[in-house]
């Protein structure tokens, strides 16, 4: 499994301050080969700073970025595909020429670069715009070109800052597919996003960052397992207070026959079902895990820095 070990991207204890403002405090996480890692956090939490440090466009005050166990260098950075938060391309340069140029700056020879540009512009649906200046494209298409710019040099790591912002639903699907495909090829993929449903759906693992520090980092299932479990019961004849007798259960809300209950540790969900059936017919009885959005709200609003590790 040496190949896998080589493809692991590690951020180890990275710190950064801007004057008196602490931007990152001992930021640590890792992304394995073939893993889609979602990076979430409020605005200003430090996601962009972390990514910029990983790309070397910003110098860290402390800590290390490693790839395959070795500190990342100028040469190995060339293997990263990067999409900066502030999108940027030469506005007056033609799409095709620009992508070839960027691919060549990443070390591809002219022939390979051209072939790769053809391939990616076709895959991302902007092949017909190759001879147009970037500034003549719609914002959505510029975004696709920006993604192509991150991919044309066949990167071994992908670091994408808010790749989904500003995309229409079709483009979101295209982008999701590309990220999943790259991960399937064994590439570690890190991306930040505020669209938490998307992160929940796509990512193998999620890191939640608050005030420059990683406060939760695990698989979506594991993060949810740590949270509260809710039951949703739809019993049309149920009166308020129908579940009061069941131990370890708190009714969060009841609207008509529909009740949402929080299940404490050790509470028996079957006892809840029996109580519900006692009121009459039960149309729905489901266990609902905490969504990433709820989890995120809880984690970010808590005052203690460490919630889970």
């Amino acid at each position, binding site marked *: 499994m040496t190949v896998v070990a080589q493809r692991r991207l590690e951020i180890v204890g990275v710190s950064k301050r801007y004057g008196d403002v602490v931007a990152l405090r001992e930021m640590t996480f890792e992304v394995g080969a073939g893993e889609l890692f979602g990076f979430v956090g409020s605005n200003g939490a430090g996601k962009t700073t972390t990514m910029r440090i990983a790309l070397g466009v910003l110098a860290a005050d402390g800590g290390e970025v490693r790839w395959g166990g070795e500190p990342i260098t100028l040469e190995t950075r060339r293997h990263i595909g990067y999409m900066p938060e502030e999108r*940027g391309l030469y506005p007056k340069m033609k799409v095709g020429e620009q992508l070839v140029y960027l691919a060549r*700056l990443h070390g591809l020879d002219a022939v390979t670069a051209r072939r790769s540009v053809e391939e990616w512009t076709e895959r991302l649906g902007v092949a017909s715009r190759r001879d147009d200046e970037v500034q003549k494209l719609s914002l959505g298409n510029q975004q696709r070109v920006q993604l192509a710019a991150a991919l044309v040099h066949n990167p071994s790591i992908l670091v994408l800052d808010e790749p989904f912002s500003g995309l229409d639903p079709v483009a979101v699907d295209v982008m999701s597919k590309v990220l999943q495909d790259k991960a399937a090829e064994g590439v570690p993929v890190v991306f930040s996003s505020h669209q938490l449903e998307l992160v929940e759906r796509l990512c193998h693992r999620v890191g939640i960052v608050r005030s420059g520090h990683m406060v939760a980092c695990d698989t979506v299932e594991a993060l949810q397992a740590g949270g509260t479990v809710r039951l949703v019961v739809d019993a049309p004849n149920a009166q308020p207070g129908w579940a009061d007798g069941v131990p370890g259960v708190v009714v969060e809300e009841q609207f008509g026959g529909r009740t949402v209950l929080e299940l404490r540790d050790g509470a028996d969900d079957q006892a809840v079902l029996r109580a519900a059936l006692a009121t009459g017919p039960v149309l729905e009885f489901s266990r609902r895990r905490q969504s990433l959005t709820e989890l995120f709200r809880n984690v970010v609003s808590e005052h203690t820095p460490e919630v889970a590790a």
Partner: protein
Amino acid sequence: MNTTPDVRMGKWEAVGLVAGREVKTRLKSKAFLATTAVTIVLLIGFTLVMKLVQGGSDASVGVAGGSTALEAPLKSTAETLGQTIDVHPVDEAAGRRQVDDGSLDALLVGDGSKIVVVVKKDIDGKLRSALDVLAGRLALNQEIVKLNGDPAAISQAVAEAKAVVEPLEPPFDYNGQQLVMGMIAGVLIYMSLLINGQSVAQGVVEEKSSRVVELLLATIQPWQLMAGKVLGIGVVGLVQMVAIGGFGLVAGLATGVLTISLSAAVGTVVWLIVWFLLGFFAYSLVFAALAALVSRQEDVGGVITPPLMFVILGYVLGISILPSDPGNHLVEVLSLVPLFAPTLMPMRMAMGGVPVWEAGLAVVLVLALIPALVWLSGRIYRNAVMRSGAKVKLVDALRAA
């Protein structure tokens, strides 16, 4: 399976790629091509105008009847006054017609004992003073004859009597053509530094304002981006200068307007190119660093004006002082100072009379300055280029690690 491509790249390979993009972009720019073409056309046009002016005479005068004897004295009088007057004998009636239709400026008539001029309406001031001098000489000769003197001998004695000047330092004999070439060299180098220097500054800000700089710097180092940009635009500027200088030289030599030696003419163009390169690299490094401080094209002018003032000041001093006073002491001193040398030295070199040690010293001083500028500009650029938004203070850019 994803295979990792071989992306090892030499330090200068990235610089070459950046420079290549600059060259391609510049050569495709219509504004650049138009400026170059217009400059070449203007220079050739100027040569042709000079040719026409040079070939013609100041005035055309006919002599008729007894005045025919005045043909030679009029020519020599005009010459001593620095005028070229075309004089030829004509039949009086035909001459009057020619004055009327404008093919003659004036016609001398009468018996030749005094000057009687037929003109259409009025007489040109310069021609009039030549004729007045001739009339005076004629009267003098007549008086000498009356006194039984020999007018020819006296004229010769008068002509030979001149003030003897003893210069302590032998002056350099400036050639009129070289003075003109010096002025043209001044205009060209000024234009070229201005246009290409500003292109560097605008290019830096374009990358900053479009944010593409973050994508680029994730791959290459700041110095590679800056060096590539300066080299690329410099190469294009060099080609432009060679083309303009070459066309101008060929036009001047082909039309016969340039009569100075070929080696002097070629030397002027070579020095022009050398000084363009030196001046361009020195100034554009400064422009690139200062432009990195701002994020919007509107702010470029503000930051590059201070160094630009030295280019403008050098040019203005040179073009206003040198043509009338090519050996001016102030200009001589300033042309050794690296800030002014790129504009003043090529003008002086074209005009001639620059001692070898001065030419060499000026080059050495600028060459010595360039590594310092590379270090300083590289530092400012590196620290400022990723900071977008408000203008970065120069001291902050210098201090930040």
